[in-house]
Protein backbone atom coordinates (compact mmCIF):
# COMPACT_ATOMS: atom_id res chain seq x y z
CA UNK A 1 0.00 0.00 0.00
CA UNK A 2 1.40 3.36 -1.07
CA UNK A 3 0.62 5.12 2.22
CA UNK A 4 2.91 2.70 4.11
CA UNK A 5 5.91 3.71 2.04
CA UNK A 6 8.09 6.74 2.81
CA UNK A 7 7.21 10.02 1.11
CA UNK A 8 9.84 12.07 -0.71
CA UNK A 9 10.80 13.99 2.45
CA UNK A 10 11.44 10.80 4.40
CA UNK A 11 13.99 9.20 2.09
CA UNK A 12 17.68 9.91 2.76
CA UNK A 13 19.06 12.50 0.35
CA UNK A 14 19.73 11.00 -3.10
CA UNK A 15 18.55 7.58 -1.81
CA UNK A 16 21.93 7.04 -0.14
CA UNK A 17 22.00 3.86 1.95
CA UNK A 18 23.46 4.45 5.40
CA UNK A 19 23.38 0.86 6.72
CA UNK A 20 26.11 -1.24 5.06
CA UNK A 21 25.18 -4.78 4.05
CA UNK A 22 21.49 -3.98 4.07
CA UNK A 23 21.00 -5.91 0.82
CA UNK A 24 20.87 -9.09 2.96
CA UNK A 25 17.56 -7.79 4.36
CA UNK A 26 16.05 -7.60 0.88
CA UNK A 27 14.81 -10.39 -1.37
CA UNK A 28 17.04 -9.17 -4.16
CA UNK A 29 16.82 -12.35 -6.23
CA UNK A 30 13.14 -13.17 -6.28
CA UNK A 31 12.83 -12.25 -9.95
CA UNK A 32 15.16 -14.94 -11.32
CA UNK A 33 14.00 -17.34 -14.03
CA UNK A 34 16.55 -20.14 -13.41
CA UNK A 35 17.76 -21.55 -10.11
CA UNK A 36 20.72 -23.84 -9.30
CA UNK A 37 20.04 -27.34 -7.98
CA UNK A 38 22.78 -29.39 -6.33
CA UNK A 39 23.15 -33.15 -6.70
CA UNK A 40 24.68 -34.05 -3.32
CA UNK A 41 25.77 -37.44 -4.63
CA UNK A 42 28.14 -35.74 -7.11
CA UNK A 43 29.24 -32.79 -4.90
CA UNK A 44 32.61 -33.15 -3.18
CA UNK A 45 32.18 -29.94 -1.11
CA UNK A 46 35.15 -28.25 -2.84
CA UNK A 47 33.54 -24.79 -2.47
CA UNK A 48 34.38 -23.52 -5.97
CA UNK A 49 30.71 -22.47 -6.38
CA UNK A 50 30.97 -20.42 -3.18
CA UNK A 51 34.18 -18.77 -4.42
CA UNK A 52 32.74 -17.85 -7.80
CA UNK A 53 29.25 -16.73 -6.76
CA UNK A 54 29.29 -13.01 -7.64
CA UNK A 55 26.48 -12.21 -5.24
CA UNK A 56 27.51 -14.11 -2.08
CA UNK A 57 24.28 -16.07 -2.32
CA UNK A 58 25.86 -19.36 -1.15
CA UNK A 59 26.48 -20.37 2.43
CA UNK A 60 28.00 -23.51 3.99
CA UNK A 61 25.76 -25.91 5.88
CA UNK A 62 26.80 -27.96 8.92
CA UNK A 63 27.44 -30.96 6.69
CA UNK A 64 29.83 -28.89 4.60
CA UNK A 65 27.65 -28.52 1.50
CA UNK A 66 27.11 -25.13 -0.10
CA UNK A 67 23.46 -24.18 -0.03
CA UNK A 68 21.87 -21.42 -2.11
CA UNK A 69 19.91 -18.57 -0.56
CA UNK A 70 17.23 -18.50 -3.23
CA UNK A 71 15.95 -15.07 -2.18
CA UNK A 72 19.38 -13.68 -2.98
CA UNK A 73 20.52 -15.80 -5.93
CA UNK A 74 19.89 -14.13 -9.32
CA UNK A 75 20.17 -17.40 -11.25
CA UNK A 76 23.20 -16.36 -13.27
CA UNK A 77 24.47 -19.96 -13.52
CA UNK A 78 28.13 -19.23 -12.81
CA UNK A 79 28.18 -21.85 -10.03
CA UNK A 80 26.83 -24.51 -12.41
CA UNK A 81 29.36 -23.46 -15.06
CA UNK A 82 32.31 -23.60 -12.66
CA UNK A 83 31.42 -26.85 -10.84
CA UNK A 84 34.07 -29.44 -11.79
CA UNK A 85 31.84 -32.36 -10.79
CA UNK A 86 28.84 -31.12 -12.79
CA UNK A 87 26.94 -31.40 -9.54
CA UNK A 88 24.91 -28.21 -10.15
CA UNK A 89 22.31 -27.83 -12.87
CA UNK A 90 20.15 -24.86 -13.64
CA UNK A 91 16.43 -25.53 -13.63
CA UNK A 92 13.53 -23.31 -14.68
CA UNK A 93 11.76 -21.58 -11.80
CA UNK A 94 8.37 -23.21 -11.46
CA UNK A 95 9.69 -26.69 -12.25
Amino acid sequence: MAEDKPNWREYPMAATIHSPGSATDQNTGDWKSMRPERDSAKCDKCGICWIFCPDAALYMTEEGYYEVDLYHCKGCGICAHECRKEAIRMVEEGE
Partner: protein
Amino acid sequence: MGERVGLEVSLAVSEAVKLARAEVIAAYPITPQTHIVEELSQMVADGDLDAEYIIVESEHSAMSACCGAAAVGARTFTATASQGLALMHEVLFIASGLRLPVVMAVANRALSAPLSIWGDQSDVMSERDSGWIQLFAETGQEALDLTIQAFKIAEDKRVLLPTEVNIDGFTLSHVVEPIEIPGQEEVDSFLPPYEPQVILDPEKPVTMGPVGFPEVYTEIKKQQNEALLGSYEVILEVWDRFAESFGRAYRPIEHYRTEDAEILINMAGAMSGTARIAVDMMREEGKKVGLIRTRLWRPYPFDEIRNAVKGAKAVAVVDRALSFGGQGGPMCSELRSALYPLTEKPVVTGYIAGLGGRDITVENFQTIVEDTEGVLTDGPREEYKMIGVRE
Protein backbone atom coordinates in the same frame (compact mmCIF):
# COMPACT_ATOMS: atom_id res chain seq x y z
CA MET B 1 40.89 44.95 -0.04
CA GLY B 2 40.53 44.01 -3.62
CA GLU B 3 42.91 44.93 -6.36
CA ARG B 4 41.75 46.16 -9.77
CA VAL B 5 43.74 44.68 -12.63
CA GLY B 6 43.48 44.14 -16.39
CA LEU B 7 42.98 40.41 -16.79
CA GLU B 8 41.83 37.89 -19.37
CA VAL B 9 38.43 36.66 -18.20
CA SER B 10 39.47 32.96 -18.31
CA LEU B 11 42.30 33.76 -15.94
CA ALA B 12 39.91 35.67 -13.68
CA VAL B 13 37.85 32.48 -13.39
CA SER B 14 41.03 30.57 -12.45
CA GLU B 15 41.78 33.28 -9.89
CA ALA B 16 38.28 32.83 -8.44
CA VAL B 17 38.85 29.07 -8.12
CA LYS B 18 42.15 29.72 -6.36
CA LEU B 19 40.54 32.26 -4.01
CA ALA B 20 37.80 29.70 -3.30
CA ARG B 21 40.54 27.25 -2.27
CA ALA B 22 39.31 24.43 -4.51
CA GLU B 23 40.77 21.12 -3.36
CA VAL B 24 40.34 18.97 -6.46
CA ILE B 25 40.39 20.01 -10.11
CA ALA B 26 39.87 17.38 -12.80
CA ALA B 27 39.73 18.70 -16.32
CA TYR B 28 40.46 18.07 -19.95
CA PRO B 29 41.47 20.98 -22.18
CA ILE B 30 39.11 22.16 -24.91
CA THR B 31 38.88 25.45 -26.76
CA PRO B 32 37.77 28.04 -25.67
CA GLN B 33 37.96 26.86 -22.07
CA THR B 34 41.61 25.75 -22.02
CA HIS B 35 43.07 28.89 -20.48
CA ILE B 36 41.06 28.37 -17.30
CA VAL B 37 42.43 24.91 -16.50
CA GLU B 38 45.85 25.64 -17.95
CA GLU B 39 46.22 28.48 -15.47
CA LEU B 40 44.91 26.32 -12.63
CA SER B 41 47.39 23.54 -13.44
CA GLN B 42 50.14 26.17 -13.33
CA MET B 43 48.93 27.44 -9.97
CA VAL B 44 48.95 23.90 -8.56
CA ALA B 45 52.38 23.13 -10.07
CA ASP B 46 53.82 26.36 -8.64
CA GLY B 47 52.40 25.59 -5.22
CA ASP B 48 50.14 28.67 -5.29
CA LEU B 49 47.04 26.50 -4.97
CA ASP B 50 46.99 23.53 -2.61
CA ALA B 51 44.83 21.21 -4.73
CA GLU B 52 44.93 17.85 -6.45
CA TYR B 53 45.00 18.44 -10.20
CA ILE B 54 43.78 15.25 -11.88
CA ILE B 55 44.81 14.87 -15.50
CA VAL B 56 42.18 12.80 -17.25
CA GLU B 57 41.75 11.33 -20.73
CA SER B 58 38.35 12.82 -21.52
CA GLU B 59 35.62 15.08 -20.20
CA HIS B 60 33.57 12.02 -19.29
CA SER B 61 36.41 11.06 -16.96
CA ALA B 62 36.82 14.65 -15.78
CA MET B 63 33.23 14.84 -14.55
CA SER B 64 33.46 11.30 -13.13
CA ALA B 65 36.59 12.24 -11.19
CA CYS B 66 34.83 15.39 -9.96
CA CYS B 67 31.91 13.28 -8.73
CA GLY B 68 34.33 11.03 -6.83
CA ALA B 69 36.15 14.00 -5.34
CA ALA B 70 32.94 15.71 -4.27
CA ALA B 71 31.69 12.39 -2.82
CA VAL B 72 34.64 12.29 -0.42
CA GLY B 73 33.94 15.88 0.57
CA ALA B 74 36.42 17.89 -1.49
CA ARG B 75 35.67 21.32 -2.92
CA THR B 76 35.73 20.44 -6.61
CA PHE B 77 36.01 22.36 -9.86
CA THR B 78 36.18 21.66 -13.56
CA ALA B 79 35.70 23.60 -16.78
CA THR B 80 34.70 22.61 -20.28
CA ALA B 81 32.91 23.65 -23.47
CA SER B 82 30.94 22.31 -26.41
CA GLN B 83 31.84 18.69 -27.29
CA GLY B 84 33.46 18.35 -23.87
CA LEU B 85 30.22 19.27 -22.12
CA ALA B 86 28.34 16.93 -24.47
CA LEU B 87 30.73 14.11 -23.56
CA MET B 88 30.01 14.78 -19.86
CA HIS B 89 26.29 14.49 -20.49
CA GLU B 90 25.47 11.30 -18.58
CA VAL B 91 27.75 12.17 -15.67
CA LEU B 92 26.14 15.62 -15.27
CA PHE B 93 22.94 13.83 -14.22
CA ILE B 94 24.91 11.71 -11.77
CA ALA B 95 26.45 14.80 -10.15
CA SER B 96 23.02 16.37 -9.67
CA GLY B 97 21.28 13.07 -8.81
CA LEU B 98 23.87 12.30 -6.13
CA ARG B 99 23.64 15.93 -4.91
CA LEU B 100 27.35 16.60 -5.36
CA PRO B 101 28.26 20.29 -5.27
CA VAL B 102 30.73 20.32 -8.17
CA VAL B 103 31.36 23.76 -9.67
CA MET B 104 31.99 24.05 -13.39
CA ALA B 105 32.76 26.90 -15.76
CA VAL B 106 31.53 26.46 -19.31
CA ALA B 107 33.09 28.66 -22.00
CA ASN B 108 30.08 28.36 -24.28
CA ARG B 109 30.83 27.13 -27.77
CA ALA B 110 28.87 25.76 -30.73
CA LEU B 111 28.40 22.03 -31.25
CA SER B 112 29.65 20.15 -34.32
CA ALA B 113 28.85 19.50 -37.15
CA PRO B 114 30.08 21.45 -39.02
CA LEU B 115 32.99 21.80 -36.67
CA SER B 116 32.99 25.16 -34.95
CA ILE B 117 35.31 26.27 -32.18
CA TRP B 118 33.45 29.57 -31.92
CA GLY B 119 30.91 30.75 -29.43
CA ASP B 120 27.21 30.15 -29.00
CA GLN B 121 25.08 28.68 -26.23
CA SER B 122 23.97 25.39 -27.83
CA ASP B 123 26.23 23.42 -25.48
CA VAL B 124 24.60 24.54 -22.25
CA MET B 125 21.11 24.54 -23.72
CA SER B 126 21.52 20.87 -24.57
CA GLU B 127 22.21 20.26 -20.85
CA ARG B 128 19.38 22.46 -19.64
CA ASP B 129 17.57 19.58 -17.95
CA SER B 130 20.60 18.04 -16.23
CA GLY B 131 19.57 19.33 -12.79
CA TRP B 132 22.45 21.80 -12.41
CA ILE B 133 22.10 25.35 -11.16
CA GLN B 134 22.92 27.41 -14.25
CA LEU B 135 24.19 30.99 -14.27
CA PHE B 136 25.23 33.26 -17.14
CA ALA B 137 27.88 35.97 -16.83
CA GLU B 138 28.07 39.07 -18.98
CA THR B 139 31.38 40.52 -17.82
CA GLY B 140 34.71 39.35 -16.48
CA GLN B 141 33.93 40.73 -13.03
CA GLU B 142 30.71 38.78 -13.05
CA ALA B 143 32.49 35.61 -14.20
CA LEU B 144 34.86 35.88 -11.24
CA ASP B 145 32.14 36.79 -8.74
CA LEU B 146 29.72 34.07 -9.90
CA THR B 147 32.46 31.45 -9.67
CA ILE B 148 33.17 32.32 -6.03
CA GLN B 149 29.44 32.47 -5.29
CA ALA B 150 28.84 29.16 -7.09
CA PHE B 151 30.77 27.25 -4.42
CA LYS B 152 28.77 28.88 -1.62
CA ILE B 153 25.47 28.18 -3.37
CA ALA B 154 26.32 24.60 -4.38
CA GLU B 155 27.67 23.60 -0.97
CA ASP B 156 24.81 25.08 1.08
CA LYS B 157 23.18 22.31 3.16
CA ARG B 158 19.79 23.30 1.79
CA VAL B 159 21.01 22.99 -1.80
CA LEU B 160 23.83 20.47 -2.42
CA LEU B 161 23.61 20.69 -6.18
CA PRO B 162 26.25 21.14 -8.87
CA THR B 163 26.50 24.65 -10.24
CA GLU B 164 27.56 25.90 -13.63
CA VAL B 165 28.86 29.33 -14.57
CA ASN B 166 28.48 30.06 -18.27
CA ILE B 167 30.78 32.49 -20.00
CA ASP B 168 30.54 33.05 -23.75
CA GLY B 169 33.46 31.46 -25.55
CA PHE B 170 35.96 34.06 -26.89
CA THR B 171 33.65 37.10 -26.66
CA LEU B 172 33.92 36.78 -22.89
CA SER B 173 36.46 34.04 -22.12
CA HIS B 174 39.27 35.58 -24.16
CA VAL B 175 38.81 39.30 -23.63
CA VAL B 176 40.87 41.37 -21.22
CA GLU B 177 38.79 43.44 -18.85
CA PRO B 178 39.39 45.53 -15.76
CA ILE B 179 38.54 43.16 -12.91
CA GLU B 180 38.64 43.65 -9.17
CA ILE B 181 40.31 40.67 -7.55
CA PRO B 182 39.01 40.31 -4.01
CA GLY B 183 41.43 39.74 -1.15
CA GLN B 184 41.95 36.19 0.13
CA GLU B 185 40.80 37.09 3.64
CA GLU B 186 37.54 38.57 2.36
CA VAL B 187 36.86 35.48 0.27
CA ASP B 188 37.73 33.18 3.18
CA SER B 189 35.22 34.91 5.39
CA PHE B 190 32.55 34.83 2.65
CA LEU B 191 33.28 31.21 1.74
CA PRO B 192 34.39 29.07 4.70
CA PRO B 193 35.64 25.52 4.09
CA TYR B 194 33.09 23.07 2.69
CA GLU B 195 31.26 21.07 5.34
CA PRO B 196 29.93 18.01 3.54
CA GLN B 197 26.85 16.27 4.93
CA VAL B 198 27.42 12.73 3.69
CA ILE B 199 30.74 11.44 2.37
CA LEU B 200 32.30 8.19 1.26
CA ASP B 201 34.32 7.10 4.27
CA PRO B 202 35.52 3.54 5.05
CA GLU B 203 34.99 4.26 8.76
CA LYS B 204 31.31 4.91 8.15
CA PRO B 205 30.36 3.20 4.90
CA VAL B 206 27.41 4.36 2.80
CA THR B 207 26.13 3.42 -0.64
CA MET B 208 25.69 6.40 -2.93
CA GLY B 209 23.60 5.94 -6.04
CA PRO B 210 21.97 2.58 -5.34
CA VAL B 211 19.34 1.16 -7.66
CA GLY B 212 16.13 3.18 -7.43
CA PHE B 213 13.22 0.85 -8.02
CA PRO B 214 10.02 2.28 -9.53
CA GLU B 215 8.53 2.63 -6.05
CA VAL B 216 11.44 4.90 -4.97
CA TYR B 217 12.70 6.75 -8.05
CA THR B 218 9.85 9.26 -8.33
CA GLU B 219 10.25 10.35 -4.69
CA ILE B 220 14.00 10.85 -5.14
CA LYS B 221 13.45 12.96 -8.28
CA LYS B 222 10.84 15.02 -6.41
CA GLN B 223 13.44 15.52 -3.65
CA GLN B 224 16.01 16.66 -6.21
CA ASN B 225 13.60 19.03 -7.93
CA GLU B 226 12.53 20.56 -4.62
CA ALA B 227 16.21 21.16 -3.83
CA LEU B 228 16.74 22.92 -7.17
CA LEU B 229 13.59 25.03 -6.76
CA GLY B 230 14.55 25.76 -3.16
CA SER B 231 18.03 26.87 -4.21
CA TYR B 232 16.40 30.05 -5.54
CA GLU B 233 16.06 31.56 -2.06
CA VAL B 234 19.59 30.46 -1.14
CA ILE B 235 20.97 32.08 -4.29
CA LEU B 236 19.29 35.37 -3.33
CA GLU B 237 20.72 35.04 0.19
CA VAL B 238 24.22 34.39 -1.15
CA TRP B 239 23.92 37.39 -3.46
CA ASP B 240 22.81 39.61 -0.56
CA ARG B 241 25.73 38.40 1.53
CA PHE B 242 28.09 38.97 -1.41
CA ALA B 243 26.80 42.52 -1.86
CA GLU B 244 27.44 43.22 1.84
CA SER B 245 31.00 41.87 1.62
CA PHE B 246 32.09 43.03 -1.82
CA GLY B 247 29.67 45.82 -2.74
CA ARG B 248 28.48 44.21 -5.98
CA ALA B 249 24.78 43.32 -6.09
CA TYR B 250 23.34 40.51 -8.20
CA ARG B 251 19.77 39.58 -9.10
CA PRO B 252 18.33 36.73 -11.22
CA ILE B 253 17.29 39.25 -13.89
CA GLU B 254 19.33 42.35 -14.67
CA HIS B 255 17.42 45.45 -15.76
CA TYR B 256 18.67 48.22 -18.02
CA ARG B 257 16.51 51.23 -18.87
CA THR B 258 13.36 49.23 -18.31
CA GLU B 259 11.39 52.05 -16.71
CA ASP B 260 8.46 52.94 -19.07
CA ALA B 261 9.93 50.54 -21.68
CA GLU B 262 7.42 49.29 -24.24
CA ILE B 263 9.74 46.82 -25.91
CA LEU B 264 12.14 44.75 -23.82
CA ILE B 265 15.02 42.77 -25.23
CA ASN B 266 15.86 39.62 -23.28
CA MET B 267 19.03 37.54 -23.59
CA ALA B 268 21.83 35.98 -21.58
CA GLY B 269 25.57 36.41 -21.64
CA ALA B 270 28.10 38.73 -23.21
CA MET B 271 25.93 40.00 -26.08
CA SER B 272 24.04 42.04 -23.49
CA GLY B 273 26.89 44.57 -23.61
CA THR B 274 26.20 45.19 -27.30
CA ALA B 275 22.45 45.23 -26.65
CA ARG B 276 22.93 47.96 -24.06
CA ILE B 277 24.60 50.19 -26.65
CA ALA B 278 21.72 49.49 -29.03
CA VAL B 279 19.21 50.36 -26.29
CA ASP B 280 20.99 53.69 -25.66
CA MET B 281 20.92 54.53 -29.38
CA MET B 282 17.24 53.64 -29.74
CA ARG B 283 16.39 55.60 -26.58
CA GLU B 284 18.05 58.63 -28.21
CA GLU B 285 15.73 58.15 -31.16
CA GLY B 286 12.84 58.27 -28.70
CA LYS B 287 12.05 54.57 -28.76
CA LYS B 288 10.97 53.16 -25.41
CA VAL B 289 13.30 50.19 -25.38
CA GLY B 290 14.83 48.41 -22.38
CA LEU B 291 16.86 45.32 -21.66
CA ILE B 292 16.33 42.41 -19.28
CA ARG B 293 19.24 40.05 -19.02
CA THR B 294 18.81 36.52 -17.70
CA ARG B 295 21.57 35.75 -15.21
CA LEU B 296 19.88 32.82 -13.46
CA TRP B 297 18.62 30.19 -15.90
CA ARG B 298 18.15 27.24 -13.53
CA PRO B 299 16.21 27.40 -11.30
CA TYR B 300 14.09 29.46 -13.69
CA PRO B 301 13.19 32.80 -12.06
CA PHE B 302 9.44 32.73 -12.80
CA ASP B 303 8.39 35.56 -10.47
CA GLU B 304 11.27 37.84 -11.42
CA ILE B 305 10.67 37.40 -15.13
CA ARG B 306 6.90 37.93 -14.78
CA ASN B 307 7.49 41.11 -12.81
CA ALA B 308 10.18 42.27 -15.21
CA VAL B 309 7.87 42.22 -18.23
CA LYS B 310 4.92 43.90 -16.49
CA GLY B 311 3.70 46.87 -18.48
CA ALA B 312 5.75 46.06 -21.59
CA LYS B 313 3.99 45.66 -24.94
CA ALA B 314 6.50 43.18 -26.29
CA VAL B 315 9.53 41.14 -25.27
CA ALA B 316 12.05 40.26 -27.98
CA VAL B 317 14.05 37.22 -26.87
CA VAL B 318 17.44 36.67 -28.47
CA ASP B 319 18.80 33.13 -28.21
CA ARG B 320 22.29 31.93 -29.14
CA ALA B 321 20.96 28.40 -29.58
CA LEU B 322 18.40 26.77 -31.83
CA SER B 323 16.04 23.98 -30.87
CA PHE B 324 15.77 22.30 -34.26
CA GLY B 325 12.26 21.74 -35.47
CA GLY B 326 10.76 23.26 -32.34
CA GLN B 327 10.00 26.73 -31.11
CA GLY B 328 13.46 28.03 -31.97
CA GLY B 329 15.24 29.54 -29.01
CA PRO B 330 15.08 27.78 -25.64
CA MET B 331 14.99 31.05 -23.65
CA CYS B 332 12.19 32.35 -25.85
CA SER B 333 10.03 29.26 -25.52
CA GLU B 334 10.51 29.18 -21.75
CA LEU B 335 9.60 32.84 -21.44
CA ARG B 336 6.46 32.31 -23.54
CA SER B 337 5.56 29.38 -21.35
CA ALA B 338 6.18 31.34 -18.14
CA LEU B 339 3.92 34.18 -19.31
CA TYR B 340 1.16 31.99 -20.73
CA PRO B 341 -0.91 31.75 -17.50
CA LEU B 342 -1.00 35.57 -17.10
CA THR B 343 -4.16 37.34 -18.24
CA GLU B 344 -2.24 40.45 -19.27
CA LYS B 345 0.99 39.66 -21.02
CA PRO B 346 3.26 41.14 -23.64
CA VAL B 347 3.73 39.77 -27.13
CA VAL B 348 6.84 37.57 -27.22
CA THR B 349 8.97 37.53 -30.37
CA GLY B 350 11.83 35.11 -30.85
CA TYR B 351 15.20 35.61 -32.57
CA ILE B 352 18.18 33.35 -33.10
CA ALA B 353 21.52 35.14 -33.41
CA GLY B 354 25.21 34.62 -32.93
CA LEU B 355 25.36 30.93 -33.85
CA GLY B 356 28.84 29.45 -34.21
CA GLY B 357 30.63 32.72 -33.45
CA ARG B 358 28.66 34.95 -35.86
CA ASP B 359 29.00 38.52 -34.58
CA ILE B 360 25.96 40.06 -32.98
CA THR B 361 25.96 43.75 -33.81
CA VAL B 362 24.20 46.85 -32.57
CA GLU B 363 22.39 46.89 -35.92
CA ASN B 364 21.13 43.35 -35.27
CA PHE B 365 19.42 44.55 -32.11
CA GLN B 366 17.94 47.52 -33.96
CA THR B 367 16.59 45.14 -36.60
CA ILE B 368 15.14 42.95 -33.86
CA VAL B 369 13.33 45.88 -32.25
CA GLU B 370 12.02 47.10 -35.64
CA ASP B 371 10.77 43.60 -36.40
CA THR B 372 9.03 43.44 -33.02
CA GLU B 373 7.43 46.84 -33.70
CA GLY B 374 6.13 45.30 -36.93
CA VAL B 375 4.59 42.40 -35.01
CA LEU B 376 2.92 44.89 -32.64
CA THR B 377 1.28 46.73 -35.55
CA ASP B 378 0.67 43.88 -38.00
CA GLY B 379 0.07 40.93 -35.69
CA PRO B 380 1.86 37.61 -35.22
CA ARG B 381 3.98 35.85 -37.81
CA GLU B 382 6.32 32.83 -37.76
CA GLU B 383 7.49 31.46 -34.39
CA TYR B 384 10.97 32.96 -34.64
CA LYS B 385 13.47 34.54 -37.01
CA MET B 386 17.13 33.82 -37.60
CA ILE B 387 19.01 37.12 -37.58
CA GLY B 388 21.62 37.82 -40.23
CA VAL B 389 21.06 34.62 -42.16
CA ARG B 390 21.62 34.99 -45.92
CA GLU B 391 18.44 33.99 -47.74
